[in-house]
């Protein structure tokens, strides 16, 4: 597995280096049916070009992205629903190809983490506000030494 993975990565690198890269979606890839093409464009923005760094296949000019774009359009032309077309590609490339990670057991912390963090922060905010609002009105004021020091700092600053 590891070796074939490395090899295909190497082969892809060679492909990228040797073939003149094209620029993302090409006119000759586009489907004649505008509705179908629009669906293809939307879907391809959620699919990752797996050899690129966080680029969708819609934006990438890598040959692999081209292949995936063509594959996706073939599936749509064959009458697949959006889900079926995506499933078809995920079955071959794994979850890695999805820019929107799937909701499953090992991604629960990812999906619910932000809301949990926000909630905890909000509760902390509420507690702090309650404590601060009920705190004694006058805490210990500056000591004379501190006041003198502050004064001298202020004066020095004014002088410079």
């Amino acid at each position: 597995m590891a070796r074939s993975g490395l090899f295909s990565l190497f082969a892809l690198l060679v492909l990228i280096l040797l073939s003149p890269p094209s620029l993302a979606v090409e006119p000759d890839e586009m489907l004649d049916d505008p509705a179908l093409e629009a669906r293809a464009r939307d879907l391809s923005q959620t699919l990752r070009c797996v050899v690129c760094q966080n680029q969708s296949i819609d934006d990438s000019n890598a040959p692999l992205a081209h292949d995936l774009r063509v594959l996706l359009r073939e599936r749509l032309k064959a009458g697949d629903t959006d889900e079926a077309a995506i499933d078809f590609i995920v079955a071959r490339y794994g979850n890695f190809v999805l820019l929107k990670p799937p909701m499953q057991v090992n991604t629960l912390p990812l999906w619910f983490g932000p809301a949990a963090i926000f909630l905890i922060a909000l509760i902390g905010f509420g507690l702090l506000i309650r404590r601060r609002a009920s705190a004694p009105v006058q805490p210990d004021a500056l000591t004379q030494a501190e006041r003198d020091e502050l004064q001298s700092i202020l004066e020095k600053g004014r002088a410079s």
Partner: protein
Amino acid sequence: MVGEIGLFALIVAFTLALTQSIIPLVGAHYGDSRFMRCGSAVALGQLGFIALAFAALTSSFVNSDFSIRNVAENSNSAMPLIYKIAATWGNHEGSMVLWVLILAVFGAAVAIFGTNLPESLKARALSVQGMIGAGFLAFILFTSNPFIRLDPAPVDGQDLNPLLQDIGLAIHPPFLYLGYVGFSMAFSFSVAALIEGRVDAAWARWVRPWVLAAWCFLTIGITLGSFWAYYELGWGGWWFWDPVENASFMPWLAGTALLHSALVVERRQTLVNWTILLGILTFSLSLIGTFLVRSGILTSVHSFALDPSRGIFVLGLLAVTSGGALALYAYRAPSLKQGTPFAAVSRESSLVLNNVLLISAAATVFLGTFYPLVIEAMSDDKISVGPPFYNLTFVPMMIPLLVVIAVGPMLKWKRDTLRSAVRKLTYAGAIAGVGVLAILIATFGAHVLAALALGLALWIVAGSLAILAHRTRLGQVPFRKSLDLARATPRAVYGLIFAHAGLGIAVAGITAMTAWQNEVLEALPVGGKLDLSGYEVTLKSVTTPNGPNFEAERATFEVTDNGDYVTTLFTERRFYPVRRTQTTEAGIYTNVLANIYLAIGKKNDAGEWTVRAYYHPLAPWIWFGPIIMALGGFISLSDRRFRVGAPRRAAAAPALVPAE
């Protein structure tokens, strides 16, 4: 010879940094002012030697000394001079030298401008600064020596990565590092304050301008990076939620929070503990960013595991720096003085809410950036976290922030009522409401979300201007009196207005670009035309001029509007033979309200060229907005209140670094 001088200078700087981390700290502990004063001299010496090393490296690049491996791998004799200079930091080793150079600049700034600081606080801060410097200089010397020689030396170099051969990206790293590394000041002073065991208004007054300056530079750095992606990658994207971008965005979010909480410490001597913690966290996020970008972990967790020497070193530095500081925090923070009380509705509480939202947002970006690495390391599964994830998590968190950002500045310190704050925003609310309605009517209700988002943008901009209207009592007193009041308004308030309004402008740009951009993709022969949002775009010619180190296909387009000439645009596809890499130079026309963006692709068998044409409404605002925000920061820095703690020159000094 120059290379050896550079290496020697780095070694001397390393020993000086070690001295700086120990002597002043010991001096502060025993109250010995000779020991404490030594810190300043050593900090200046350290800067001198790092500057010498940096100059040696730059001169090796400028003179194309290919016997130095780093130069041979990242430069080429045919490259224009500007990119030879930029290549100095366009590689791992050189960028780390720039990193420590900027760190040393900040250290020297403490030494020079810190004359009015309490002696022991200054000594301790310098000492912490020295420790960070020593760690990173050791990193350079032991894992990333930029001066390693090659024998025999190659005839010519392997060229700088062509994507980096661009003016925007040449000046991007210095700005980014001024921001990243600038937050080290917040860190050093936080740790020093923890050792001292006391934090007061003078502390905040000293730290805040440095945080503000670092924040301004980071804002500019990120904006430059985003703009570069827009015009260089050839399809008009400007933010990708890529881990490398997130690496700079996390410290920015935390730094923005720090900026606001330091304000509370300065004005009300409360939130002290939290601000110290934020100071530590913000710089830790900068270090994490450095780790992400420099360790190679992003390409793959497994490739990182194969050659981990650099990554482990940075990770170790991170563990010692952040871990040590956090442990010290846990030990000392409870003994810090508790602050003055404030009511649930007050300026203080609005600033705490700002922190709650910004830190949650930073944590979300952190989760999205690191979660795929965790999954990959712990199982055979591999996932990607892309824009759809952030649209569902980060964006909803930003919306409450955009709503309250206009309200916060209207609240009084200590105690206020929501009603009186909202009353000051009546006009801003009305303007936003009318804006939403107008957009809904103009688009026949087809873009409700976009209309609401633009309404938010209007709300922020109008709400920011309302601060000035309120302060000058516009309409309530004769206009002449209002002008006098405007003149008497401190610059810090203008800074606030600019910074907040800038965010509103950016929100407008992002919204319009997302909702209404138009793309036309066609294969055109020379002389062919396409229609783009009412403009007619004609491909006039394609030539093949050669640059100094690249071959190009250069297309000339003419843009007309109903037959009236608008502009001529040039767009290039460049091929760099040394690296066998292709880049795109987009042709962009802007009238401030929209961009016309053209790029050419390859030629097909019928002799037609792929032409990618975009109409990007309000796109320029995406970058104008942040630049206005940074401008607001600089205006605030020029406020005379700051001169008490840090002279005005202090803010300008770091800006001189990129010119070196």
